[in-house]
């Protein structure tokens, strides 16, 4: 049987995706977890993975002009749509690696060079397998690396007969987020009752709708602004979306992060942990899995 997949996302960063994911993994145990935030990944700080396999990732190529062959005709600069060529040099930050300059260069002075742009990891944690990656700073986050992380997780789940994959998603709604949600069975959006949180929640829900993925919502720091929490609930109800849990605004979450533990282990009897356990049960029910 193919493993069920749930992705935790939020639109807005810092809403509590990783806090929730780590606890869901701790409660589930027999699952594969991925960190699809390959850019500013944090899940490993709570799950403490031991790396068992590391692979190099080749992403975007960059153009390079060989100064000794360059005849300074300027054709490359005219052809580049990304303004990446100045003074007969390629600015690697602006270069998108399309290769147009190399193709049109009459002196064959330009080459596309491939570099390692990140690493792909397979790890073991005390909860099971974890698939994650680290993109090198400044690289293009095209979603390719996220796809590899997820493929890796799917293979591991199949090989080991595990029926659930939990994906910790990146913030935003672009490439890496799209790569984190395509083909999953469920998207859980973590939001907060701030005007920005609501704004970003709506965009995240629209994205899930765009890809035909069933959404569930949970509200973190719900007591920070009860009026806004009410607004989120009303909005969700009007759109037929279930709010599956509310988590208190509580510094204990930060304390558990400092301790390097999922909150449900750090303080299992706290109201926060109880809310998360409730959310977990609801997710498992939605995916038709036993708790």
């Amino acid at each position: 049987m193919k493993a069920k997949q749930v992705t935790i996302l939020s639109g807005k960063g810092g809403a509590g995706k990783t806090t929730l994911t780590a606890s869901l993994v701790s409660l589930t145990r027999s699952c594969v977890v991925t960190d699809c935030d390959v850019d500013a990944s944090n899940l490993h700080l709570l799950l403490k993975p031991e790396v068992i396999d590391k692979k190099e990732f080749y992403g975007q190529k960059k153009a390079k002009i060989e100064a000794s062959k360059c005849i300074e005709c300027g054709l490359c600069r005219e052809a580049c749509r990304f303004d990446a060529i100045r003074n007969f040099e390629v600015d690697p930050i602006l270069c998108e690696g399309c290769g147009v300059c190399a193709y049109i260069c009459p002196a064959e002075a330009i080459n596309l060079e491939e570099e390692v742009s990140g690493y792909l990891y397979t790890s073991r944690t005390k909860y099971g397998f974890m698939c994650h990656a680290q993109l090198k700073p400044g690289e293009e986050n095209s979603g390719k690396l996220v796809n590899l992380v997820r493929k890796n997780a799917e293979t591991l789940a199949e090989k080991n007969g595990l029926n659930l994959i939990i994906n910790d998603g990146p913030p935003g709604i672009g490439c890496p987020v799209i790569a984190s949600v395509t083909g999953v069975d469920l998207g859980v959006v973590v939001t907060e009752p701030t005007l920005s949180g609501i704004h970003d929640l709506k965009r995240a829900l629209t994205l899930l709708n765009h890809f035909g993925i069933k959404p569930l919502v949970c509200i973190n720091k719900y007591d920070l602004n009860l009026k806004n929490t009410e607004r989120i609930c009303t909005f969700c109800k009007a759109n037929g979306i279930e709010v599956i849990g509310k988590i208190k605004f509580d510094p204990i979450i930060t304390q558990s992060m400092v301790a390097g533990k999922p909150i449900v282990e750090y303080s299992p009897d706290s109201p926060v942990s109880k809310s998360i356990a409730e959310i977990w049960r609801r997710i498992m029910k939605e995916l038709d899995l036993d708790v």
Partner: protein
Amino acid sequence: MILSVASGKGGTGKTTVAVNLALSMERKVQILDCDVEEPNVHVLLKPKVTERKPVYIRIPKVNENLCSHCGECAKFCQFNAILALPTEVIVFPELCHGCGGCKVVCPSNAITEEDKEVGEVVRGFSDGIEVVYGILKIGEPMPVPVIREVKRYLDKEKDVIIDAPPGTSCPLVHSVYGSDFVILVAESTPFGLHDLRITVDVLRQMKIPFGVVVNFKGVGDEGVYEYCKREDIPIILEIPFSREIAELYSRGIPFVETLEGWKARFRELTKRIEEYI
């Protein structure tokens, strides 16, 4: 002066710092929201909109009557955005970067280009502050073309504040590119420290000077402080962890408007930054 406000980790208070700084500055200010996936500056500043402009990228259109199905376009495309089958060519617009390479290599002149809307740029004013923000269309994967358009509005006559997206990849780099100084907003927690470190790596590679604003001071640990001391990174401002500030933010109210003394503190911050530059 062009100041960017950035942080690897999301939710550390970039927009809060950018907006409160803009409201505190004495000279004419322009604020550019380059977090086009989830722009939030306008949620706090509520500008009166004066201009909306769609952002396009140019994607290929294949004329099947002229196409010889040689496959050169697909072979050339670095982004796998064109699939050349024996009798048909398929374009995947969401993978296309709009480089125009396929058109250049096509020997039959069968490729033309058409505009595809990927988002929009909005410009407006809020109490004399010029606000420009980009909105990536939902379902579109690439934020950089929208960021590029937002930055075309950059007005060097004014003090410019750029609210950068989270993370350390392409969108961040494009946003802070060309800045005189980057304000890194960090929370002193293990997550905050991890993401601060990788952001520092990028800024050092880009050779842009930077300093750290510690937000939510009072929760977490000493990690960020120890790191900054070790790496000789200046801590240029501390904002306490306060339920009051969090509640103001939740209602969309910049805290310099209600909490006394903060405008002066942000003004001092800009003076200190000028010294670093």
